[in-house]
């Protein structure tokens, strides 16, 4: 946790020299605590105080990066327990595991399926983040072959999983030119594995059976000079992962307990009997504090669900995802084509635009500035009323593009009909369906 103004004041010279631009050291300390001033503005602060202040300012959950040849994934640096308190910043990395005991051709097929997968969602192209390769064989040459095979199929980051430093080093050799996560240091191998992570400057996952042991290990490993760590508290089931991951996030945020201030790696497949159960556990880890989520099974349907959930949970609650207000032309509309209006909330816009597009029917979509809210929410908040809709009709110049004066409004705001007829004299207001999915059927009946 950041230091309070008074705690910072104790570290300052307390001479009130005013050279920082503030009348007293206390005033300066208060500004520092509020992150409205820079420590560098104090010419007399001691080196020791600088170090202490820098340490206190370090993020409570360390930011850890892994890199492939073409992609970088950063996790950690979270500052809240609940997304409404601010936002969650770094989406958990979704990885798919392959084992080196699997024939190379099958490994390549699995990598191609999972890494080649992408899905369009509200104008974004969503995909998984990388591959975890496990040295299940226990043989260095076999592991190297598997890592090389995976890297032929993807330029995304890897997680190298093995029981000892020798195997991990073999994997690192095969993955040269990338920055993988090593998994894992344990109470039995930590000295060798940590030395390897330090020498190669790669992040290191640390696994232990209890939080006490986990904290002991990270302190020892930090002592060897490894800063980038990831935690595996060893739990796998739904109840124990929820409790333990919550506790880890609290330790980091509420107590600034540095030994546990790292992102967390989870293996939902190890706590699940089949794909659907694994997906449910992974969903829990997305909502509640997973950093790297390593899946054992891949299917497009489950990938889509998890990627959508991750996008939703990690959307900044203070900044709804919006599209630009204005006129959107779909399927090459003519002056006789229908005119529909909706809001500029991304999910709303894409639901409507996709339906019209998919129907094959031409249409003009007028997107009103509703401050990024959905139709009902915007209406309730007074951001999608007759006045705003009329304004966007007039300001966008749509009247010069169409040869009729008919406007289709969402069924959810049918109550606006009367007011809109007043606000737009000469226009005919038509009430469309409530849900976007019913638009194609509605548009088939359209005539100008």
């Amino acid at each position, binding site marked *: 946790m950041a230091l309070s103004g008074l705690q910072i004041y104790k570290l300052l010279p307390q001479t009130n020299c005013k050279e920082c631009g503030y009348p007293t050291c206390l005033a300066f300390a208060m500004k520092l605590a509020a992150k409205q001033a820079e420590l560098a503005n104090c010419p007399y602060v001691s080196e020791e105080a600088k170090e202490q202040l820098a340490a206190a300012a370090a993020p409570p959950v360390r930011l850890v990066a892994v890199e492939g040849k073409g992609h970088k994934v950063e996790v950690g640096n979270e500052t809240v327990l609940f997304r409404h308190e601010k936002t969650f910043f770094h989406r958990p990395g979704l990885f798919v595991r392959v084992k080196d005991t699997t024939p190379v051709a099958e490994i390549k097929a699995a990598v191609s399926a999972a890494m080649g997968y992408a899905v*369009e969602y509200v104008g974004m192209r969503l995909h998984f983040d990388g591959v975890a390769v496990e040295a299940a064989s226990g043989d260095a040459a076999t592991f190297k072959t598997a890592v090389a095979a995976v890297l032929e199929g993807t330029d995304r980051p890897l997680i190298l999983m093995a029981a000892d430093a020798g195997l991990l080093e073999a994997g690192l050799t095969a993955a040269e030119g990338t920055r993988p996560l090593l998994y894992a240091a344990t109470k039995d191998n930590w000295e060798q594995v940590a030395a390897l992570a330090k020498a190669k400057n790669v992040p290191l996952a640390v696994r232990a059976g209890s939080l006490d042991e986990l904290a002991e290990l990270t302190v020892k490993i930090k002592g060897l000079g490894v800063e980038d760590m990831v935690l595996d508290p060893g739990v796998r*089931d739904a109840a124990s992962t929820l409790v333990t991951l919550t506790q880890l996030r609290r330790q980091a945020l509420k107590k600034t307990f540095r*030994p546990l201030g790292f992102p967390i790696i989870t293996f939902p497949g190890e706590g699940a009997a089949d794909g659907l159960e694994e*997906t449910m556990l992974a969903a829990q880890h997305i*909502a509640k504090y997973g950093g790297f989520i390593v899946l054992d099974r891949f299917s497009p349907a489950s990938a889509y669900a998890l990627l959508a959930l991750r996008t939703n949970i990690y959307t900044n609650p203070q900044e709804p995802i919006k599209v630009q207000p204005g006129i959107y032309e779909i399927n090459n509309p003519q002056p006789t084509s229908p005119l529909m209006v909706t809001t500029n909330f991304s999910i709303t816009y894409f639901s409507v635009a996709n339906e019209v597009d998919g129907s094959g029917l031409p249409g003009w979509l007028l997107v009103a500035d509703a401050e990024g809210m959905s139709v009902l929410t915007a209406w309730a908040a007074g951001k999608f009323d007759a006045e705003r809709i009329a304004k966007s009709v007039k300001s966008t110049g749509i009247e010069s593009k169409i040869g009729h004066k008919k406007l289709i409004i969402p069924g959810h705001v049918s109550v606006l009909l009367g007011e809109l007829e007043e606000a737009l004299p000469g226009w005919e207001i038509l009430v469309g369906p409530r849900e976007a999915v019913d638009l194609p059927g509605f548009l088939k009946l359209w005539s100008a």
Partner: protein
Amino acid sequence: MTVELQVEKWAGSVLQVTLGATANEGGTRARTVTVGGETTLPFLHFEGQIPNPPRVAIEISAQYPGDWSPLLLKAWGDAVNDPAAWAQAAEKAGADLVLLQLNLTGDGGAPVTAADARAATRAVLQATGLPLLVFGPGQVDADNELLVAVAEEAVGERIVLGICEEKNYRTIVAAALAHGHLVNARTAMDVNLAKQLNILISDMGMPLDRILMDPTTAGLGYGIEYGYSVMERLRLAALQGDKMTQLPMLVTPGYEAWRQKECKVGEGVPASWGDWEERAVLWETITATALIESGADILVMRHPEAVRRVKAFIDRLMAK
């Protein structure tokens, strides 16, 4: 090294609400179902009590649900034509509760009458011993007419009448008060609106332990994060002692998931969406999973496989 666990001391707790009444209590239910009572956040057993698990209500329709996805119609088979048979199938599928949804119109477009609503309620009460929830079509006049009749028909059964909204709650609450029932109070994804409606309803004399609150949710991919965060804020407020937020939460992941294209249709969608049936069941299941993590006490669901999966997951989360 000993890590000192970070344990929150919460000042408040969620009220316990009991649905249904057995013969001893003036009804005919085989058992009652109690929800709520949490003294901590969802499933954090080390910190407080979770006396009752989240419960699943299976939604059945009093009239043939012509607008439902073919996947749902297939899953329930012939039962969709007969609310009594459907209620029995729901019980068999593991429902803790049955939610009977009344529509505006029935076969051939004829308006559903109070007599129809009574008959469907009676048939379902006779077909299953589970506690019942009955929701109106969502249109003010129809809701008031049908739910008053339902409340009379089910007198003493402690059913839940819904949906009370700010624009229409008085008649429904009065009917629930007169006949010993509970109500479901729905608001649009806003903590203060939820509190306000709870206050309005309790001001009519309805005890708080006969109100469920429905903060409105959205399906996965369609704004689920809004409802999710409002639920987390309501639950945190409840635990911090804010009385008007201490009601158990009812949410409708079945309706929210199945009205989206991902569930509803199997053709004309991107190949990256994967297998239709797998995706549809997943969509409802994952929507429900996210909502139990944010504090849901009653999940209203539709597909029997999604129900089975979510119930099994709740069992795992309840294991200490």
